[in-house]
C-alpha cells in the first residue's frame, strides 16, 4: 500500500539543521573560507583573518535562525541562507 507523502514543516527542517550544525560545531566547523554558497553574513565573517572565528557558527546569533525555527514562512529572502531555502523546498 502506498503511503501518503508528506512534506516536513520548514520550521522542523530549520530546527534539525540548527541541531546538526551544533553537533558539527562541537569540534569546530569547516572554516567559512573553505565553504561554498555563503550567505551575506557568512561572507562578512569569511573576510575575517581568524580561522577560529570562521570555524564558529554565526547562525547562532542570526535572527534568520530564530524566525525560521518558529515560523513556517519566515521573512527571510537573501540567497544562500539554509533557513530561507527550507521554506522553499
Amino acid at each position, binding site marked *: *500500500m502506498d*503511503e*501518503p*507523502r*508528506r*512534506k*516536513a*514543516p520548514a520550521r*522542523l*527542517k530549520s*530546527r*534539525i*539543521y540548527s*541541531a*546538526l*550544525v551544533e*553537533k*558539527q*560545531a562541537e*569540534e*569546530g*566547523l*569547516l*572554516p567559512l573560507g*573553505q*565553504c*561554498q*554558497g555563503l550567505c551575506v553574513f557568512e561572507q562578512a565573517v569569511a573576510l575575517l583573518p581568524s580561522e577560529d572565528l570562521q570555524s564558529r*557558527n554565526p*547562525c547562532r546569533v542570526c535572527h534568520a535562525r530564530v524566525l525560521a525555527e518558529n515560523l513556517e514562512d519566515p521573512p527571510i529572502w537573501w540567497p544562500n541562507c*539554509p533557513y530561507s*531555502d*527550507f521554506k522553499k*523546498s
Partner: protein
Amino acid sequence: MGESFRFSDDKELTEQTDQDLARAVLARDRKAAARFVEMFADDVYSLIWNRLTPRVGAVDDLVQETFLAAWSALGRYTGEAPLRQWILSIARHKVHDHYRRAFQWNFDAVDDEPAEAESIETALLETERSERVLATLETLRPEYAALLRWRYWDGQSAREMAVATGKTEKAIERMLARARMEFREKWEAAHGRT
C-alpha cells in the same frame, strides 16, 4: 580540510554522491548539513508520520532524533545502500523505540485470554488506513493503539515484539487480544457489528 560540498546534479544522485555528502557532513561542512536535511527530511517525516498517525504528536521529535542518530552513525555509512535507505532504516528503528516506550503495560495483570476477534483483525489489515480505523484507534488507550499499529501496520510479529520488549510471546499475544477486544468494542459502538 577539503573543499566544501557541492552537488553537480541535485536530482540524479548516485552512491558516489551519497558518500560525498556523508563525508562532507562528517568534515563538519555546514552547507553539507543543510543539504543533508533538505534531501531527506521529507522522506523521514513522511515515514514517521504515516507510522504514528493518528497520534502524531511525537513526529517532530522522532524526526529530529533520527537525524541526530544519523549524524552519530554517519562514520559507519559504507555507501552499500543509498543514503536515503540508510536514514530511513534509522527512522524505522526510532519508530520501534517509540512503540516500545508507548508500550508501558503491567503484563502481570493480564492473566486471562480473551477470545480472538478475527473479523476485527481482518478489518485492521485490510482497511488499515481508512478514516474509520484511524478514528477508532484514536479512542483506544494509548498502549493498545500503539500495540495494534506496531503489529498490523509495522508488520512486527508477536515474537519480534516480545524480543523488543523483553516480554514473553504469550504475554504479547494476550495483550494483543485485549487490544483487539477494545478495538472491537469501540468499533461496534461506532459502526455496529462487523
